[in-house]
């Protein structure tokens, strides 16, 4: 993860272009080159909870005007857009901000017609793939961070130059830009980024004889704590998940794998080549062994872990039946929401759990290495020939992306669930309000610089969503020994990268 030098960040547009020249090799269709540089004033080298608090609320932006400089506000056109919006189980604030955005967009650009579809997280990739095959894709799509590279590799996405949309490369996290670069070309822009955190129930810890205010420091501690919780209280300690083809599994297991010194490929290296398989190195084996210890030996994690996604850990946690788990930053808001809906005796239980929720940094490996998945979403533009109707209205697309990724909206739209992909979002009032109202936000945002993106390969979804969980399941069910499972996974990863298929 490269560190930006303070001076470089405050330089003029020309230096920013130089940095961009490194990451962008291709120029898209020539268009309006007016750039709105937001005057990057965030110093990533000082990143810490205190720094984050200190810069919040120090700048305001007039998004409609800023984007009006990129695309005139009276432009008439249309844009189609797919994304994962708020659903029934999401907190109210998410719904409110989503609505507020579309209102603001239609006020700023009253003559642009929007055709918007909100599709659930687990279905979006499937539907996008099918739509592409039938040439009925939307013009713009926001995909989770792991999703876009497959389509970039297949030639479905348009290369992007940030200036066209009023941004510069310095407005985004380097790791985020890495995740959206394929073959030295930028194929999208980050919209939001988050890293997971570790949450635990302080009361459960206290009852089990553990220090209620301290998170387990290392993964070995997690194994020990989990056992203690199970032995003393009879409930599950750590919320392990190992379901195949569920996005949550790699987000929770990879940090463990990386912390021990392992990896799928060499994604933890400063300059990854994504050519070397690391899944059966010593660190990886140790990580799988730890999971095996918890599941099969200590039996301190839910038995249903093999068919659980993270969603199925939440309810037990809020019911006080689970001690700790890796959680998305939005978990707190979710719990608050669930607690507010509870009635009768359930309400006391729920309120108690909410009061006892604690957030901490993810545990480190035995060497003190802390790793966390760099998560988030990116926004992409689809090539016209695959779009429904055969054409892409470039100006309308620019207007949408400019507003969606503006400091103001990239913060507000990700209020409960994530953090602004546009780093300038950390300067807004909205950010300050979030810091004041969302407990532990300072903790969850503090790990952003140490995030590692998944390998940026089109085969990554298969590796992360199928091969890695398979390996876990093989080891946890005792189908294979830990060594066999990791070797098996190594073989599969190698054959997938070579272009064949694994385990056909």
């Amino acid at each position, binding site marked *: 993860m490269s560190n930006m030098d303070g001076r470089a960040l405050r330089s003029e547009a020309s230096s920013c272009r130089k940095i961009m020249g490194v990451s962008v090799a291709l120029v898209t269709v020539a268009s309006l080159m007016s750039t709105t540089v937001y005057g990057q004033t965030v110093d990533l080298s000082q990143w810490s909870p205190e720094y984050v608090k200190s810069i919040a609320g120090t700048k305001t932006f007039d998004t409609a005007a800023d984007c009006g400089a990129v695309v005139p506000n009276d432009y008439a056109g249309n844009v189609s857009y*797919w994304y*994962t919006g708020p*659903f*029934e*189980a*999401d907190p109210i604030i998410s*719904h409110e901000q989503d609505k507020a955005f579309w209102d603001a967009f239609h006020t700023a650009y009253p003559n642009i017609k929007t055709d918007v*579809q*909100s*599709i*659930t*997280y*687990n*279905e979006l990739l499937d*539907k996008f793939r*099918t*739509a592409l*095959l*039938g*040439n*009925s894709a939307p013009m713009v799509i926001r995909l989770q961070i792991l999703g876009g590279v497959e389509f970039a590799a297949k030639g479905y996405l348009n290369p992007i130059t940030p200036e066209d949309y009023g941004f510069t490369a310095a407005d985004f996290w380097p790791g985020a830009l890495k995740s959206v670069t394929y073959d030295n070309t930028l194929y999208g822009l980050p919209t939001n980024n988050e890293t997971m955190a570790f949450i635990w129930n302080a009361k459960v810890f206290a009852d089990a004889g553990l220090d209620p205010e301290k998170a387990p420091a290392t993964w070995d501690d997690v194994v020990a704590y989990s056992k203690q919780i199970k032995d003393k209280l009879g409930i599950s300690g750590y919320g392990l998940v190992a379901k195949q083809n569920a*996005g949550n599994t790699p987000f929770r297991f990879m940090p463990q794998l990386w912390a021990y010194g392992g990896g799928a490929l060499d994604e933890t290296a400063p300059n990854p080549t994504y050519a070397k398989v690391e899944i059966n190195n010593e660190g990886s084996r140790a990580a799988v062994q730890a999971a095996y210890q918890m599941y099969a030996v200590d039996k301190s994690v839910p038995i249903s872990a093999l068919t659980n996604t*993270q*969603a*199925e850990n*939440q*309810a*037990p946690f*809020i*019911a006080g*039946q689970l001690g700790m788990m890796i959680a*998305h930053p*939005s*978990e707190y808001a*979710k719990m608050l929401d*669930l607690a507010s*809906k*509870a*009635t*009768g*005796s*359930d309400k006391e*239980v*729920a309120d108690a759990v909410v009061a006892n929720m604690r957030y901490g940094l993810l545990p480190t490996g035995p060497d003190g290495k802390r790793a966390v998945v760099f998560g988030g979403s990116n926004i992409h533009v689809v090539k016209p020939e695959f779009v429904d109707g055969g054409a892409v209205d470039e100006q309308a697309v620019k207007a949408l992306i400019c507003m969606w990724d503006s400091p103001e909206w990239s913060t507000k739209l990700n209020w409960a669930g994530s953090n602004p992909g546009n780093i300038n979002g950390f300067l807004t009032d909205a950010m300050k309000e979030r810091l004041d109202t969302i407990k532990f936000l300072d903790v969850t945002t503090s790990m952003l610089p140490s995030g590692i993106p998944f390998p940026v390969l089109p085969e990554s979804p298969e590796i992360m969503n199928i091969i890695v969980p398979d390996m876990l399941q093989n080891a946890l069910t005792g189908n294979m020994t830990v060594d066999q499972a990791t070797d098996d996974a190594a073989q599969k990863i190698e054959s997938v990268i070579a272009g064949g298929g694994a385990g056909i």
Partner: protein
Amino acid sequence: MTTISERAVSRRNRVDWWRWAGRLFLVLVLGFTVMPMIWMIITSLKTGFAAMQYPPQWWPASPTLENYTRLLDPSGRIGQDFLHYFWNSLWVSTITTVLAVVVAVPAAYAFSRFRFPGRNFLFFAVLLRNMFPAVVFLVPLFILMKALGLVNTHGSLILTYLTFGLPLAIWLLKGFYDNIPIQLEQAARIDGATRFQAFIFVVMPLSTPGIIATSIYSFIGAWNEYIYAYTFLTKQSQMTLPVGIQRFFSENATDWPGLMAATFIMSVPVVVLFLVLQKYFVQALTEGAVKH
């Protein structure tokens, strides 16, 4: 030597033994059948966390109808969405049923009465649809629907669902027509009716149970279908119930009681429909499925 009356008594006892075994079997099967539905109802009456207790509460500590009211309340967003899905399902299922009858009845009659070249082959082709797994066809059918301009419309579903019910419908109705003596049509023809008129006015009314059975089968099939609805529809406004209910499992929360309530509501129409009309269905199977 046993007398006749003694033999009769012992026979009666043996029959009774079978009868009791039959009754016991029925009770067990009934329990097996009904238990999941009962648990579904009980879960739907619980609040979110109550469902997560282990050991589970056999009867909710604070039973509530809020899961149901939330789904059916038109003023709330959830209620609006749910009722919309309900309406979409109703619409698609009804149209599919009507078209299925319109298409299947003449075809069944033709296969029953007529002898034309290729008859057996075509009958085979129609029934063959049953053999093909729905899943395999998802992508090519999607491409086809795109070419026909039907993506994200209910038309794509109706067209596809037609093919699900047709094989059984045609087979069932053919059996019906096989069992209707041709003397009736002969009489009508002698009286001057054309072949078509004889069919419409004489024969078809006699196959009413078969038509009702076909309708029930088509309706239920279309109502419950999931995979194609999932693939062909992306617009939320078009979604049918099975797909809509999936949305209760969004990324970060599992609302089991809500899901159970939704599942229950989704099952009610078809179960009621079936209970009311089951006698026609049984009659149709009896007359249509069994050759005399």
